[in-house]
């Protein structure tokens, strides 16, 4: 009697989502939905200026408003040694400004009041006297001799440089360039963007003097990291801190860092001994919290006439804002930028990187990507297209010629990563077939005769997902493993907890599917909980597509530990030795007599009622999983577009996505993630960016200026799959949540640039707004999108 794995909701089942039952009824439990008895409300006062010395702050009028319970400024924070906090990148960040404001939107003061309306009124009553200072909004300004030093609070900081970093083989790469027939070049800016989940950040801090326990409900993707940070910053004992991350209205990396609002709400609750709620407004979220990208990339490719890539040089100038608070593994200063070109067989490469301070919001986060991988892959695929064009080769064939071959794994990338599996050529073939590549090229030529501009853009890439192995990956020294804890109750039902934290990924559904696959317990019999540090095992949280590669692997491993114990119990129940029994899904049976067996549920009952002599009762365990390597999904995205030469407007005709993320736990959820990712890719390529004027005013501080595509603009997508199992993951899965966001933008931009081919234009910076495309078409010159924005 074999169990059908798909029927019990195991691997490969498009199981309907468990969490939907509450969401479709409006019964989700987001931070702002929580109301505690006696709760007060907090509002932050933010700086209107991007760079200014604070001469004085007068809070008298704020205190005088009825209903105001507390007003805090940087000076008061400083008296408790809390005016500054450490960042995730070994820098410091102001909690409430004391000396200067360093970006528009910086937190200056807070008011706690009986309701948020009163708190807002009181914030407006605070009078701040500023002395404006010169403003820096890009790396060129930052590194100009004599530029004002933004971080004059730091000893030994005499300019705006944060780091100089390099990786790769300089001499080898120089030699490759000497031997090159052709050298191709490209320079571009990947604009600042904001992850912008629809739900903003917020917290409710609840300090109970009678128990000394601090409970904080918080919009965080990484509750355990927050607990550690609060323990260190606020000097509270870790066991007296409970962080609860309830349902999150999206995260996309924005909810990884520690923000001043969280810290201030905690202090306010300790001072007032009442729960204090802080819910950020959208402008606060867009102008002050973790952004993505903002990197200037330039590079060269050494090429042989026949199309073989001999070597690559890259340089990045990254704009980190006023505080270096990137959320990334500590060893890599510009994230995993050096994962670029991993899908191509390139002998040698060299990358130099410089990071600077500017008068912009801090917090470079992995916006739906693994630590700067988005910028790396965008540059890679733009560079590859430029090189193919320079050589006069077909862009698909040029890629195929340089791909790492299927039998070439494990493969060492030019920057030293080890990729482990893939079928790159097959993915490309499926994509080309689906889009009708040859036919489209003919249509394009035909259309050209009638003055119509069609273009096709390809983006192929493998990216490193699932940080990471603990040798290479840590945040503030904490190794990037993850965890799972499984308790099987006596009736065979179970509860699973992990150190990850879903923000829409559907862990309550998919983790149960892994248990079903490993133990044969129907997924409906497994409840999944995450996000409460008092109950969940320690984990590093969910970002960088690490849940399935790391926490998901831990779910497999803990299930296998449970199975190992159940096997001993089964042998005891069958009165045979362990060597005489075999496992099939959900059941142990006697090898010599397969009809005689016991189910996993019978083993569970016995674990509490009839254990063998000497065995501990119960059926529960935990697993901490340190992956041997990252996982390397591969994707091929192909877009076709038509550009209107009279307006610069471009429309997507077709978008084909071929994703190989290894074994798919829940195909429905995987496809949902790919479509969401493609939409963010389209957003970045077409409309979504944050920029600044020369006074450091943020342009993109609300949804009227910061454009997100709606159902009306978003194109349709055609999805295809290839499955190359990850050789080291327990169930062969790879990360997927961000592939489309990472690889997608280059497909759209390459398509528009292909439509402009022959015009002499080499690059138009994202987003490809109609006026930029029109300018490129009419001037035949590249169009830069670097701030400050042009006002004329």
């Amino acid at each position, binding site marked *: 009697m074999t169990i059908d794995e798909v029927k019990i909701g195991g691997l490969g089942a498009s199981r309907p989502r468990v969490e939907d039952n509450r*969401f479709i009824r409006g019964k989700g439990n987001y931070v702002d939905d929580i109301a505690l008895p006696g709760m007060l409300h907090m509002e932050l006062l933010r700086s209107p200026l991007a760079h200014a010395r604070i001469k004085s702050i007068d809070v008298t009028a704020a205190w005088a408003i009825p209903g105001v319970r507390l007003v805090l400024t940087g000076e008061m924070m400083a008296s408790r040694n809390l005016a500054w906090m450490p960042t995730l990148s070994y820098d410091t960040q102001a909690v409430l400004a004391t000396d200067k404001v360093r970006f528009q939107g910086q937190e200056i003061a807070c008011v706690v009041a009986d309701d948020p309306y*009163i708190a807002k009124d009181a914030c407006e009553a605070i009078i701040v006297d500023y002395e404006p200072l010169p403003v820096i909004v890009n790396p060129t300004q930052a590194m100009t001799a004599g530029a004002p030093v933004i971080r004059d609070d730091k000893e030994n900081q005499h300019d705006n440089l944060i780091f100089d970093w390099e990786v790769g083989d300089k001499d080898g790469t120089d030699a490759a360039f000497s031997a090159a027939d052709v050298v191709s070049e490209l320079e571009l800016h990947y604009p600042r963007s904001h992850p912008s989940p*629809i739900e903003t950040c917020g917290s409710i801090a609840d300090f109970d003097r009678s128990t000394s326990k601090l409970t904080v409900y918080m919009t965080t993707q990484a509750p355990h990291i927050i607990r550690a940070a609060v323990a260190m910053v606020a000097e509270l004992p870790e066991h007296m801190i409970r962080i609860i991350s309830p349902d999150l209205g999206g995260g996309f990396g924005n909810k990884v860092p520690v923000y001043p609002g969280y810290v201030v709400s905690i202090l306010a609750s300790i001072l007032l001994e009442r729960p204090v709620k802080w819910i950020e407004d959208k402008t606060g979220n867009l102008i002050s919290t973790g952004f993505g990208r903002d990197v200037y990339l330039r590079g060269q490719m050494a090429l042989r006439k026949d199309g073989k890539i001999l070597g690559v040089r890259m340089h990045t100038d990254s704009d980190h804002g006023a505080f270096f608070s990137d959320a990334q593994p500590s060893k890599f200063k510009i994230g995993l930028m050096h994962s670029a070109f991993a899908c191509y067989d390139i002998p040698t490469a060299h990358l130099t990187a410089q990071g600077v301070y500017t008068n912009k919001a801090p917090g470079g986060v992995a916006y739906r990507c693994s630590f700067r991988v988005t910028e790396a892959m965008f540059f890679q695929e733009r560079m590859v297209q430029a090189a193919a064009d320079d050589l006069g080769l077909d862009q698909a064939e040029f890629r195929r010629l340089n791909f790492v071959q299927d039998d070439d794994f494990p493969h060492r990338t030019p920057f030293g990563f080890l990729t482990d599996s893939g079928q790159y050529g097959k993915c490309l073939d499926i994509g080309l077939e689906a889009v009708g590549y040859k036919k489209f090229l003919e249509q394009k030529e035909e259309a050209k005769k009638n003055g119509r501009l069609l273009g096709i853009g390809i983006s192929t890439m493998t990216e490193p997902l699932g940080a990471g192995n603990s040798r290479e990956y840590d945040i503030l020294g904490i190794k990037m493993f993850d965890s799972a804890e499984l308790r099987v109750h006596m009736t065979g039902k179970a509860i699973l907890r992990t150190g990850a934290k879903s923000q829409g990924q559907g862990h309550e559904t998919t983790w149960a599917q892994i248990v079903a696959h490993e133990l044969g317990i129907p997924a409906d019999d497994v409840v999944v909980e995450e996000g409460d540090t008092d109950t969940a095992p320690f984990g590093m949280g969910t970002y960088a597509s690490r849940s399935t590669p790391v926490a998901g692997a831990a779910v497999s491993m803990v299930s296998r530990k449970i199975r190992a114990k159940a096997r001993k119990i089964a042998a005891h129940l069958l009165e045979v030795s362990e060597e005489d029994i075999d496992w099939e899904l959900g059941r142990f049976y006697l090898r010599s007599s397969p009809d005689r067996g016991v189910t996993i549920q019978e083993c569970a009952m016995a674990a509490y009622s009839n254990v063998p002599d000497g065995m501990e009762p119960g059926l529960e365990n935990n697993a901490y999983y340190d992956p041997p390597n990252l996982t390397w999904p591969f994707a091929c995205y192909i877009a076709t577009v038509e550009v209107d030469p009279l307006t610069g407007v471009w429309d997507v005709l077709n978008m084909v996505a071929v994703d190989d993320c290894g074994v798919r736990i829940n195909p429905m959820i995987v496809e*949902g993630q790919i479509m*969401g990712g493609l939409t963010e890719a389209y957003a970045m390529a077409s409309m979504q960016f944050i920029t600044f004027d020369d006074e450091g005013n943020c342009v993109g501080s*609300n949804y009227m200026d910061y454009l997100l595509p709606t159902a009306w603009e978003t194109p349709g997508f055609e999805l295809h799959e290839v499955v190359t199992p990850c050789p080291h993951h327990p169930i062969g899965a790879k990360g997927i949540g961000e592939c489309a966001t990472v690889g997608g933008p280059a497909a759209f931009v390459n398509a528009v640039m292909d439509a402009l081919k022959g015009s002499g234009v080499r690059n138009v910076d994202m987003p490809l707004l109609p006026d930029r495309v029109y300018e490129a078409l009419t001037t035949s010159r590249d169009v830069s999108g670097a701030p400050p924005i042009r006002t004329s």
Partner: protein
Amino acid sequence: MTSLFEVMPAETAVDTPVRKLTVNVNGKQETLKVEPRLLLAHMIRQALGLTGTHVGCDTTNCGACTVLFDGAPVKSCTMFAVQADGHDITTVEGLASASELDPIQEGFKDEHGLQCGFCTPGMMLSAKALLTENPNPTEDEVRWALSGNLCRCTGYQNIVKAVLLAAESLQHQEASKDEGETL
């Protein structure tokens, strides 16, 4: 001082201007006293405890706060509570009956039309208004009707499918009702 977020007792502090209003929410008559500046979204969430209506952007763009106002979708984050005096409001909590889900809710679940769930209530209410007015919409009509609601997770494709599926099942329901009547 009574908090703005509580249903105010009659003897509210003298210095707070208060308006009395009566509103029908999900078929239930509610009488409240509120400050004139209280936003409708906050009245629904805090005073009535219906937290399925979410506040996303504060500027009428994202649509997470969408409710039905006399049957028409409105963004409750930029309306005052007092404007609802004498009107009917439907929130996500009013979509399902005690025993069964609305076909729109079924559609969103069946077609995987949601991920984080934050935009979902507003999205479903906009869809409800569309299907009431136009029971058999085209894909373009669905996309246009939902273009005041932002979603960051799904890419809309499955949301559109969900609404089309709901339209189909509503038509089946109507058809079987008609059949029942003829018999």
